[in-house]
């Protein structure tokens, strides 16, 4: 009975942790996507490069803070992929390459959404 209680406690602890992480990811990723959609993309489309670079800096800082926790629970290859994309976006913004910057931003946005969606209990994730 003791073993059952301990194992049940561990399992419930993991489930509670998963709920907390899911909530944290939902909020943080939603926030990052908001920055991309509302600030970064319009700035790139309007060739407002100064604003774009400032917003990108904010995005990078927030991402660096969030990814510390993500690294503990999510496939690290997926997290690294966003870091590589961020590096590319930095160069595209420096070079004022509108199309490349927009496409890379879209890629990051989709990737961020996928990070969250992969953790949800869905039949396609389970199978």
């Amino acid at each position: 009975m003791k073993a059952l209680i301990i194992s049940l406690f561990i399992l419930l602890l993991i489930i509670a942790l998963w709920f907390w992480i899911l909530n944290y990811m939902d909020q943080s990723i939603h926030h990052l996507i908001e920055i991309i959609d509302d600030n970064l993309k319009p700035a790139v489309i309007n060739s407002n490069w100064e604003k774009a670079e400032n917003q990108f800096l904010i995005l990078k800082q927030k991402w660096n803070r969030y990814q510390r926790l993500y690294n503990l629970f999510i496939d690290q290859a997926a997290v690294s992929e966003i870091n590589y994309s961020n590096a590319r976006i930095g160069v595209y913004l420096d070079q004022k390459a509108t199309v490349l910057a927009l496409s890379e931003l879209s890629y990051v946005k989709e990737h961020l959404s996928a990070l969250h969606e992969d953790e949800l209990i869905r039949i396609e994730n389970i199978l």
Partner: protein
Amino acid sequence: MIVILTRTIILYGVVLFMIRLMGKAELAEMEPFQLVIILMVAELAVLPMENTDISLMNGITALAALLFIQVLISYISLKSEKGRILFCGKPSILINKGNIVESEMKKLRININDLLEELRSNSITSLDDVEYAILETNGDLNVIPKAEARPLTKKDMLISSPIQHMSLPLIVDGMVYQDSLKALNLTEDWLKKNMESANINDYKEILFCYIDENDDLHFHRKQGNKGEVKK
């Protein structure tokens, strides 16, 4: 490299904790569900150990889930007969009252050679000596010989034997086992007196000391000298 080293140490601790919590029965790989758990644990522990892309927490989560499943199934098997049959199956009688049960053999895909091999490993050389042969749910074949083929026991000869306690260690590498003394209603003073009779002044001089079923005390000194004192 140091990351893999650290992960290995952590996962070793986790798996050790798991196996300890699962209980001793797990180590014997007794029932089908326990065998499955052991195989899966081994595989799951290795994946995050060697692949640093996989989060350690994900590996631990999978192991924790297995731990829970195993403990839950064990508990259900313990409390419910139906549960036990569902998870462990039923023992199969291969020889019943000296007759081979062919239908059961076919069902289990066991041929006569396999049966004879198992009987030989149970020190049975003739099928005629077997009253019952039961294939247990853990895959072991238990053989009950016919009455005339069973070894003679004291009970058969109506000889009574005194109740004996099991042999217990009293001192191991200079350390006194208080639990053993307590179990036999003995004291350290008694032990010291016996040590003096064997010319031993300190526990540290003793490598191993035990009391056997006949209450004889045996000393093995660290230098390799052996002593024996009757209780």
